């Protein structure tokens, strides 16, 4: 009886919405309102059971009003590539993003694919100081193609684009008002994806760098009093001779422990922070001083930063975790949003926030600096901050296009997949008992977020929820460079020492025909393109055919499964892609597999396929057809095989803006 009533009411709501939507298309295009919520990595395999169980009521309501489909993702299904498809409505032929990491063919040095540091400012050298005078490009966006919101603002439609990935630095409006905040791709203060600091008073602690962080000893001054240094970026004002390592900026701090209770006082730059065990501090705003005379008035003389402290333990040793240093949204000279002072305004109104593109610190979890519960607390801080920002943005929304991004769905799935998937090699029923619902709970939280948007959206508005890709288990890591070595495509100068060759140091390029760099990219050592290329262009086609065929036949002896589902030849899927940037083959791994951690940056461990014991247990850098995303909308979608590329033309069509020629997608709501 109750189910029948629910069905009837859902149908009635749907009809009402459709009728209202159809009748309101007459309003001026610029006055229309389109809301898009981007849920990074939201996966149909996770979402559908939750929908069936009634745990995602707002998603269910939206799907009933319009429709729900799986959404074709990018090749490869990595977030920078996928969101670039969304932003430009074009594939990698136009936007030039093929992986998180690209390589410079002339130096074979890897670099972050989405942005780089532009020309440095003209400067003069005075004594040991290097004083920038004028010019300098700052950070430059490497993603090509025109973002769809540029067409919107040109046509007079105001746009809000909150934390869109692959959009750092932010663009400017071409007409109507653009409000944006940069997202994934925004570096921490050190210029990378984020580097935590971990301090310990344990005398056995030595200073060392780990993946995504650094460990430092705390120096004991007395039984309960210690001191350390928070290390920042290299001093930009210091003149450095070629080959020299620049001095790093540092802020000294003290940690004093109560003689009896598990609480400490952190003293840093005149501020006092009290922390009990398991407590996170509020944001602490700091300033790294370069030491140059007149630093307080000289542009770049100080580098503002923000971080949070976490007291992991007070006894027997003081253990303090510090988040990666963020660019301070209030003081930073880097532009973090549009208009230029938007980030400052947001921080002043809602408090300082994570500016780093991917704030959930999975590296700290993988390296043991945080345990599962502590990581979840940190991830919750991020999600709560995002919810607060959503409320703020909705409160200040004045019309036009509205995009808001959630990354928690992706980050939490990466690290808690093995607790949810009994097929994962690291699955442990006891651990799953406690953490098996973590991903589901994050999905429920973003359902709440959708509910908040639905409260603001009028029936005639268009509302879309989409994800850039789905998810998969990552049980086994494939050492592609090892495979290339074992199969004679890559050669070393000496013997074959395990794990030594990070960065291709001892590769014999004169006998190397292919190499892997990045998560999914395989490059031919092409003559005329690569620094030490040996493969003639007329040999390339046959080599690619051979490699693709052989790769698709690789079988994991432990499981009997194929490791690679598809080896995409880039000349076939992306003809006319930029030859200096595009890889030659994109390796589409099978379910359960991914590139190993080592092979991404050129390591060649002896073992060809290894078990992934990293806390990063779920992934999506596989064959695209294995990890579709999702799309839910309040209007019926008339395209069966919806794809990320369709988003931009669909949004433009909502405002009667014709699809630009270079866009590859279709209007999902069109005939």
């Amino acid at each position, binding site marked *: 009886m109750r189910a029948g009533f629910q069905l009837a009411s859902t149908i009635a709501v749907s009809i009402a919405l459709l009728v209202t939507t159809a009748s309101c298309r007459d309003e001026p295009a610029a006055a229309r309102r389109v809301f898009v919520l981007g849920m990074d990595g939201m996966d149909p395999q996770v979402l559908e059971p939750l929908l069936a169980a009634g745990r995602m009521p707002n998603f269910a309501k939206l799907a009933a009003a319009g429709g729900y489909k799986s959404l074709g993702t990018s090749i490869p299904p990595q977030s920078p590539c996928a969101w670039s498809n969304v932003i430009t409505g074009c594939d990698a032929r136009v936007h030039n993003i093929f992986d998180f990491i690209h390589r410079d063919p002339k130096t074979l040095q890897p670099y972050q694919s989405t942005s780089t540091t532009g020309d440095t400012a003209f400067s003069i050298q005075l004594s040991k100081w290097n004083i920038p005078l004028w010019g300098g490009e700052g950070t430059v966006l490497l993603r090509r193609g025109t973002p769809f919101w540029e067409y919107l603002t040109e046509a007079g439609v105001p746009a809000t684009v909150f934390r869109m990935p692959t959009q750092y630095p932010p663009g400017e409006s071409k007409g109507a008002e653009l409000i944006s905040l940069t997202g994934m791709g925004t570096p921490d203060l050190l210029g990378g994806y984020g580097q935590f600091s971990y301090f310990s008073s344990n005398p056995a602690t030595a200073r060392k760098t780990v993946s995504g962080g650094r460990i430092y000893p705390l120096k004991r001054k007395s039984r*309960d*009093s210690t001191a350390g240094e928070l290390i920042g970026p290299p001093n930009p004002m210091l003149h450095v001779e070629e080959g020299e390592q620049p001095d790093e900026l540092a802020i000294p701090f003290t940690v*004093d422990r*109560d003689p009896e*209770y598990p609480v400490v*006082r952190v003293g840093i730059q005149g501020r006092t922070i*009290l922390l009990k065990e398991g407590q996170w501090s509020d944001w602490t705003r700091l300033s790294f001083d370069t030491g140059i005379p007149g630093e307080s008035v000289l542009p770049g003389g100080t580098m503002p930063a923000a971080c949070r402290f976490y007291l992991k333990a007070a006894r027997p040793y003081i253990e303090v975790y510090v988040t990666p240093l963020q660019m301070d949204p209030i003081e930073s000279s880097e532009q973090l949003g549009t208009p230029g002072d938007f980030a400052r305004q947001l921080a002043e109104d809602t408090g300082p926030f994570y500016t780093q593109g991917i704030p959930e610190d999975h590296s700290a979890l993988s390296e043991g600096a945080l345990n599962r519960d502590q990581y979840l607390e940190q991830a919750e801080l991020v999600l709560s901050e995002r919810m607060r920002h959503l409320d703020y943005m909705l409160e200040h929304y004045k019309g036009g296009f509205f995009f808001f991004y959630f990354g928690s769905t992706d980050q939490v799935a990466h690290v808690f997949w093995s607790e949810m998937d009994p097929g994962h090699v690291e699955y442990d029923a006891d651990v799953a008992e406690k953490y098996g619902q973590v991903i589901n709970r994050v999905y429920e939280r973003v359902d709440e977020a959708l509910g908040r948007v639905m409260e603001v959206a009028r029936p005639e508005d268009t509302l879309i929820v989409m994800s850039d890709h789905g998810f998969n288990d990552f049980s086994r890591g494939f050492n592609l460079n090892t495979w290339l070595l074992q199969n004679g495509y890559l050669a070393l100068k000496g013997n074959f020492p395990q794990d030594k060759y990070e960065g291709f140091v001892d590769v014999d390029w004169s006998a190397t025909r292919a190499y892997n760099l990045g998560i999914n990219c395989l490059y031919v050592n092409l003559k005329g393109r690569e620094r030490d290329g040996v493969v003639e262009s007329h040999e390339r086609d046959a080599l690619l055919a051979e490699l693709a065929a052989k790769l698709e036949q690789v079988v994991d002896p432990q499981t009997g499964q194929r490791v690679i589902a598809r080896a995409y030849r880039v000349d076939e899927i992306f003809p006319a892609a930029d030859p200096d940037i595009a890889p030659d083959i994109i390796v589409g791994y099978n379910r359960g597999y991914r590139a190993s951690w080592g092979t991404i940056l050129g390591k060649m461990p002896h073992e060809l396929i290894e078990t992934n014991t990293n806390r990063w247990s779920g992934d999506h850098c596989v064959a695209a057809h294995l990890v579709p995303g999702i799309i839910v909308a309040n209007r019926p979608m008339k395209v069966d095989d919806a794809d990320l590329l369709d988003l931009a033309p669909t949004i433009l069509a909502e405002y009667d803006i014709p699809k630009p020629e270079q866009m590859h997608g279709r209007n999902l709501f069109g005939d």
Partner: protein
Amino acid sequence: MRAVNNMMNLLGDLAFAPFGSAPPWVALVALSAVAGLLMMIVFKYTSYQTKLKAVSDRTRADLLAMKLFKDDLSVTFASQWDLLRATGKRLWYSLWPPMAVMIVPFVLAIAQIGVRYEFRPLAIGEHALVTLRLSEDAFQANAGVPLEAPDGVEVVTGPVRVPAEATIYWEVRVAGNGDHELAWQINHQRILKSLPANGGLRPVSPRRPTTGFWDQLLYPLEEPFLATSPARSIEVGLPQRSTPILGLDIHWLISFFVLSMVFALLLKPFLKVQL
């Protein structure tokens, strides 16, 4: 000093009373206007107006001489020397006696404005750091002294005791409005510190002072600790108050100085004051 502070606190309350619940910038602008007027009046009646007039006339004559005899180097240099001396004299006549007369009341008045504009009361949900500094002996004997938080104040973290500084820290959270009072019982003495929560423009003190002159001058609201008290100081980390005027968020002291100067200059012709 305490008697002076008590009187100034009373005068401060009276001066701010007419502004009731008006936005803080209104009182700041109005008081700047009053200060500008008073400065002009005091200056008029305490400065050597005839001497200042003579200096002004001499300056004008020197400028004229430089213009008329611009080809004559000796006249130009002599006039420039005269101008330099005139500037010195003008400065001296401004300082003595007017500045000497105004300095004490002016500083006391600034302290009264400061206790209202430098910090603001805590809002519900806000946290504050409480720092209690004791004498060495008192710390040794009372390191475990608890903070007696009244209703409406919760201790979030602490105590954290740092023996090397004879200091104890707490972090508190305000859960209810009101003029809260934090208390400690040390060596049979009850030590108190105000913790204001909510309310508009009102005097607040982040520090209960010692008997030192500057401490009492800067923090005039609360009774200073006697030299025999086990407590040396108590601080509460109150939030800074922001008082934007015409959308410009400038420190209140700069706003006050600039505005009082502007008002003083505007009133100058009406009061016929020679500067």
